[in-house]
């Protein structure tokens, strides 16, 4: 009796529904934001950019880059490769979210300020953070030895951390065109309930997308380490 050939262990990707579910959630938020949320009277339709811009900024700054700093710090202490994988995943996914922030921000700014860009504290610091994370990625690609790569990148990951509170406080500390927070402030949100609901739903959908992308990226890092381990043995 012959049995069917077993599939390759390495060629069988795991079925994971989180990513498709998160993409669907973001698509539904797009529909709600574009078609079922009222247009702000003074700013016009461009104000709806906030549902993508502000949520992406919040997740990049306060989730991705905080996670990058914490996992980098813990890596230097514990030397656990899993922490390095978390750090590199948070940096890459955070970079994608920051890229969206830097693309959507000027589109919104052009309609409100009449300028694509202004070199004020918040915008400049965000751009600087983006370059720092790009440097982090380039450094990871350039250093081959795994331990040294993890140590160097942990240092950059920690150095990026002070930019997060600086960017948050920059609108209070400096004269800037960037608006003050309208939701994350001690007083009540300065928006109608429908807009707040869309913003909260957008925040939840993009958080889900962030978690799904982190999982995928972490899995990719684990797979790469396995491949490099085999290639090292056969070299």
């Amino acid at each position, binding site marked *: *009796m012959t*049995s*069917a*050939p*077993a*599939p*390759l*262990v*390495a*060629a069988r*990707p795991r079925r994971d529904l989180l*990513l498709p579910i998160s*993409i669907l959630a*973001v698509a539904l938020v*797009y529909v709600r*934001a*574009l078609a079922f949320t009222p*247009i*702000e*009277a*003074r*700013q*016009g*339709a*461009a104000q*709806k*950019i906030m549902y*993508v*811009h502000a949520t*992406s900024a919040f997740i990049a700054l306060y989730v991705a880059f905080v996670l990058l700093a914490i996992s980098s710090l813990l890596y230097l202490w514990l030397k656990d490769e899993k922490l390095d994988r978390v750090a590199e995943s948070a940096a890459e*996914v955070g970079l*994608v979210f920051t*890229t*969206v922030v830097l*693309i*959507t921000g000027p*589109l*919104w700014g*052009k*309609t409100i300020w009449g300028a694509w860009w202004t070199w004020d504290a918040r915008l400049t610091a965000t751009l600087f953070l983006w370059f720092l994370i790009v440097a982090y990625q380039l450094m990871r690609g350039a250093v081959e030895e795994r331990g040294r790569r993890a140590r160097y990148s942990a240092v950059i990951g920690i150095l990026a951390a002070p930019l997060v509170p600086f960017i948050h406080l920059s609108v209070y500390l400096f004269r800037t065109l960037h608006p003050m927070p309208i939701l994350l402030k001690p007083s009540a949100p300065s928006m109608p309930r429908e807009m707040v609901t869309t913003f909260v739903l957008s925040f939840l959908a993009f958080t889900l*997308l962030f978690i799904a*992308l982190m999982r*995928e*990226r972490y*899995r*990719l890092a684990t*797979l*790469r380490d*396995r*491949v490099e381990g*085999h*290639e090292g043995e*056969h070299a």
Partner: protein
Amino acid sequence: MTPDNSGYMIAAYALAALVYGAYVLSLKVRERRLRARLSRFESPARPASNRPAGA
């Protein structure tokens, strides 16, 4: 008067979708390449034999 700037809104949403979509695609492409490299080292799991031990 409410300004008509819906073009900027559509551009922002489209570009955001493009960036996120491209990143998901890049993850999938990199995973496929790594699995192809890994399959050269990790052999197929052997099916259990029906023959009795020592036969």
